[in-house]
């Protein structure tokens, strides 16, 4: 190995085939040394803590320290050894200019007793053993999770089973990796990096959890020292774990072209909603730590239910924004569409009154017309869409103001008509279920075949596969196959039993099935408790997100939408009818706004002249938070979903954690700018 060339005092700089200077002391090593020193001292401190009884483990608080339990003994030993190794490694790195590295270890240059190498092996061994112990603890009931303390262990909850399985799997993988490192199997290098990085994240989570608990405890009385041992149980070890993993990770990643953190960053950078996803988790964590109410069913259901409108309108706006245009008139179209829908059923328009389904179709057609007007003005005059739709925003609002004049509110209930029901033949419903089942079976089978092919391809080339993570990929494809198979069979079973039940009902009762259309559009879910306001509209929202995300990323039309927004000239040169795509998108956007209006009418049964006023800016904000570029050509519908959720979470969350609601718009403003900045930065980090 050239790295080992005897350049006098080890100052010789040797470049490995990755182009990185391996033999030299990298700049980042100073950070690693600092980390190791901190870790070493912290470990020894923790060891001392356990011995002197400050940190009682298990159920053994406040007992005499002469009576240490086995876990505590193991912990004393572990922290002492770990602290020793860390300090020894730090000292060695500090003293010697030329530090050992993994590449040399695999080339057989170093023995396992080299600083750094031993450090990695030790950490992985500890992680592996501890994971297995944790899994065992959960199974035997020593470490109950969730709210289920003191229950018999035959009754594990889902959380516990998942945790036990996860910990067990991690333990096995880690120990296998240790064995790989020991036998100098080069694949273990990659595995070690991933394991250490994942465990570092676990450590950070534990630490944050503990830290924020201090926050929770303070206002409720009691001094910080009273609660310190309890808090430290998570913070101390969590932080120590995090720092240890980071130190080892930095050591492992030396000389690697694309270490796991770069892989993760690149993957994120490819996703338009990356900033939004990061922000989403950050906000969930902050609010759930800040308020116990936040993660309650009631709050979550309310969060979803109140954002249906924004969510559905944001789909259209995002779609349009990706094609490089912009629609300020959605708020007015939303109101006008809802108005037409309600008018058709109650007063009638031009003397024509219809039932609910034609009313819905007419409202959608009307909205499509409004959207088409937007689009046609745009392409005929060439005026920017901002101005065009600013005009139509006001113009379309006038429809509502004129029709629903004199401060009136149009109410369904004022017309003394019963809520709309549809009557469906049981056989028809059964047939519908069967048709859906067949379609889903075909789609599912196709997906299953693709995943199965991937799996068998990977299995076939297993022996010759160069990929270090080949076992993981096989596990992953296998998991996909199983999930598709199980989910598919469950859905088919559900549809089949529905069909059978309908046929059975038809035979026994013979009457037609009565379904309230308003409930179908946006009623409450029956199976949740009454205080939980979960609405069926949420389902429609998610379904529309799925459909439009599919259209955008998987179909020809979606490809054209991207091209039209990204470079209209190039799109035109490739024979895409740019104007048609734009007008179509304006129509889609308006129809989605109208759909949101109909769903809202189904719940509230009224339309007031200012319905949807100001909606456009909220929705555009949500789309931008979700990663869509205002200049076009970039964005995702899934991102818009996240964007809307962030918007909604801030609205409810700030109230829950006790922030003055008047600050809300200020916070939203800051968040929008932050989101765009994060999105830009994440995109740039891509190499």
């Amino acid at each position: 190995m050239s790295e080992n060339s005897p350049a006098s005092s080890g100052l010789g700089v040797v470049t490995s085939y990755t182009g990185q200077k391996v033999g030299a002391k990298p700049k980042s090593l100073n950070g690693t040394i600092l980390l190791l020193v901190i870790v070493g001292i912290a470990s020894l401190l923790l060891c001392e803590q356990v011995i002197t009884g400050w940190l009682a483990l298990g159920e053994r608080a406040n007992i005499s320290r002469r009576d240490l339990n086995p876990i505590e003994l193991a912990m004393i030993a572990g922290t002492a050894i770990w602290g020793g190794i860390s300090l020894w490694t730090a000292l060695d790195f500090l003293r010697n200019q030329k530090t050992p590295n993994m590449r040399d270890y695999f080339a057989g240059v170093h023995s396992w007793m080299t600083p750094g190498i031993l450090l990695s092996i030790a950490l992985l061994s500890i992680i592996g053993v501890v994971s297995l112990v944790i899994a065992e603890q959960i199974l035997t009931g020593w470490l109950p999770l969730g709210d289920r303390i003191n229950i018999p262990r035959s009754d594990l909850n889902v959380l516990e089973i998942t945790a036990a399985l996860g910990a067990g799997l991690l333990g096995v993988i880690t120990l296998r990796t240790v064995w790989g490192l020991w036998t100098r199997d080069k694949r273990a290098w990659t595995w070690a990096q991933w394991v250490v990085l994942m465990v570092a994240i676990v450590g950070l989570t534990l630490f944050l959890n503990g830290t924020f608990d201090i926050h929770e405890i303070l206002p409720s009385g009691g001094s910080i020292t009273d609660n310190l041992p309890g808090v430290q149980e998570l913070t101390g070890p969590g932080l120590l774990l995090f720092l240890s993993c980071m130190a080892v990770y930095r050591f492992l990643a030396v000389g690697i072209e694309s270490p796991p953190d770069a892989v993760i960053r690149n993957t994120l950078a490819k996703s338009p909603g990356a900033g939004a996803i990061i922000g989403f988790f950050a906000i969930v964590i902050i609010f759930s730590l800040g308020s116990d109410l936040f993660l309650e069913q009631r709050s979550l259901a309310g969060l979803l239910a109140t954002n249906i409108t924004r969510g559905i309108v944001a789909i259209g706006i995002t779609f349009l924004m990706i094609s490089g245009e912009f629609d300020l008139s959605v708020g007015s179209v939303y109101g006008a569409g809802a108005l037409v829908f309600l008018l058709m059923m109650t007063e009638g328009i031009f003397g024509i009154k219809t039932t609910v389904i034609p009313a819905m179709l007419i409202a959608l057609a009307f909205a499509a017309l409004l959207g088409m007007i937007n689009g046609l003005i745009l392409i005929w005059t060439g005026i920017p869409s901002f101005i065009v739709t600013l005009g139509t925003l006001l113009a379309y609002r006038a429809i509502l103001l004129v029709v629903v004049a004199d401060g009136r509110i149009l109410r369904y209930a004022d017309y003394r008509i019963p809520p709309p029901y549809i009557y469906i033949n049981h056989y028809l419903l059964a047939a519908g279920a069967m048709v859906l089942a067949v379609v889903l079976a075909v789609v599912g089978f196709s997906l299953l075949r693709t995943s199965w092919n991937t799996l068998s391809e990977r299995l076939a080339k297993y022996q010759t596969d160069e990929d270090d993570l080949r076992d993981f990929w096989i596990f992953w494809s296998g998991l996909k196959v199983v999930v598709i198979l199980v989910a598919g069979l469950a859905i088919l079973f559900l549809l089949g039993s529905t069909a059978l039940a309908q046929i059975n009902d038809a035979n026994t009762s013979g009457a037609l099935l009565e379904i309230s259309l308003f409930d179908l559009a946006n009623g409450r879910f029956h199976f949740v408790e009454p205080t939980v306001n979960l609405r069926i509209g949420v389902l429609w929202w998610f379904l529309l997100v799925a459909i439009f995300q599919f259209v955008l990323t998987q179909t020809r039309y979606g490809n054209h939408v991207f091209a039209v927004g990204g470079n209209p000239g190039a799109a035109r040169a490739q024979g895409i009818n740019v104007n048609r795509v734009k007008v179509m998108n304006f129509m889609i956007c308006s129809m989605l706004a109208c759909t949101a209006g109909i769903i809202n009418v189904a719940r509230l049964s009224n339309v007031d002249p200012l319905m949807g006023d100001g909606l456009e800016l909220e929705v555009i904000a949500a789309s931008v938070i979700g990663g869509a570029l205002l200049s076009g050509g970039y964005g995702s519908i899934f991102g818009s979903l996240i964007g809307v959720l962030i918007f909604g979470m801030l609205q409810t969350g700030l109230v829950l954690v006790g922030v003055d609601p008047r600050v809300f718009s200020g916070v939203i403003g800051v968040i929008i700018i932050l989101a765009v900045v994060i999105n830009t930065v994440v995109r740039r980090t891509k190499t």
Partner: protein
Amino acid sequence: MSAATPLVEMRGIQKSFGTVNVLRGIDFQVDRQEIVGLLGDNGAGKSTLIKILTGVHTPTKGEIFFEGNPVRITSPHDARDLGIETVYQDLALVPLMSIARNFWLGQELTRNIGPVSVLDKEVMSNRTREALLDVGIHIRNPDEPVGSLSGGERQSIAIGRAVYFGKKLLILDEPTSALSVGETRKVLDYTYAAKERGLSVIFITHNIGHVHEVADRFTIISHGQKVGDFRKDEVTEMEVAHMVMTGEVPERLRLVPETGDD
């Protein structure tokens, strides 16, 4: 249709925008498997002439023959159907989309999952890689966004795409004006590769240095009129540059009769 029939022949093309006569009767032709350098100073009418050929503008007067048949090209779609592919300096590709998606833009491959047809991304990626390799263009990853590529790489991909889709005429609009020397070199190589594969190429530029090496013939226009039409062996680089600049044919060349196959 004999081999002597030019691929494209434009006769007496005139174009005026309002009262401004941009083209005052230009004859222009491209033979099969020929690289023609279309030269002229800024505002000479090169772009207008080409936009008439690609259907962006319709001529005020004049005829166009494609493979000997009179054609009316009224939209970019018509030009595309005839097998004319234009590569614009900045309009060739969509920067935020991947190489593969750009390559197949407008003629995406799909496969059916039950009743819905979805993009066949894997096949598109693989064929993109193969097709570009075929003309000698190596790409790292077809799923990479075009925005991460250099100007020369973008031009190359656009050329590779035209070759792959079996076009007959490739129009390169100022393809090298923003490129480094090394990249210009590469674009010229791919241009030559396109010719080798049977395409004709119109190479528009105002700088003779960029095209002298690969072109078979030069057509020079100035102020909406053709200055001259010369085979490469008839003129020197200096003389062409002079003609582009002044719009006048040097004394030495005036006696030479019109050349070409007609």
